């Protein structure tokens, strides 16, 4: 897998989400803008996981990235279900935003692998 393409994808997504964060804040949609900040961080998390996975293996990140990234994102799914069950609408928005980013990243990683 070409690491540079994956890095570019992450940087593009970060820039796009950041521009959305800024637009929402400028429009006076502060809460929605703050929720997106959680999504923004997921790209950095995945980059760190990918770098660590690459360092572990000589022939690319392989399955190590998917396994570790899944370990990190699985609790978010559980947290989303818990938030829904308790009617915690704010938490629902945050977990959904994080999982949306995770889904994008997984799809791209699968496509590039």
């Amino acid at each position, binding site marked *: 897998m070409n690491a540079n393409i994956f890095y570019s994808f992450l940087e593009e997504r970060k820039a796009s989400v950041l521009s959305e964060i800024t637009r929402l804040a400028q*429009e006076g*949609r*502060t*809460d*929605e803008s703050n929720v997106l900040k959680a999504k923004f961080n997921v790209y950095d998390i995945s980059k760190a996981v990918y770098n660590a996975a690459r360092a572990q293996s000589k022939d690319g990140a392989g399955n190590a990235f998917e396994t570790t990234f899944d370990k990190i994102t699985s609790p978010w799914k559980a947290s989303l279900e818990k938030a829904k069950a308790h009617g915690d609408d704010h938490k629902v928005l945050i977990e*959904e935003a994080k999982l949306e980013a995770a889904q994008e990243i997984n799809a791209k990683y699968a496509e590039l692998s």
Partner: protein
Amino acid sequence: MTELQAISLFKCLADKSRIQILKSLMEEDMYVERLSERLNLTPATISFHLKKLVDAGAVKSRRDQYYTMYAINGDVFNVSILDILKEKSEEKSLQDERDEAYRKKVIDAFFEYGKLKSIPSQRKKELIVLEEIAKAFEKGRDYTEREVNLIIADFNDDFCTIRRDMISEKILTRNNMLYRKL
């Protein structure tokens, strides 16, 4: 509406999406999915904002068959901002206590055994001192300049300055050479 309720309402209203939701509800009562389609926001986002609006008292909800319908709470929006500001503040009594403590501190510092030791240079403090001296005047009674001078002289020899300052601070009025406490 209490001060805390007003703060919570104003904070809640400071968001474009919530204002858009309120505008939609002004037209008719709606449920989450209807608002979601109309405003192009996810149902989760709408629910989040509605929860805030309900908590702030801006919106009311009711069950209608399978849906939860949301409606503007007219009572909250019929209150004018001026009425909210006129509400007695929970802080008011504390502020009054602090003002009174400051006043006492100034009086203790500038008066000794009922005599004014010196005229404060700070206007805020001088005003407190002048108001204290004004207690010696009866309200609604006219005084000649000589009477005014004699009363002020009981506090301090510089009765001319004090008399003039009491006029300029609108504690006393002068009309046809007669003085009266306001």
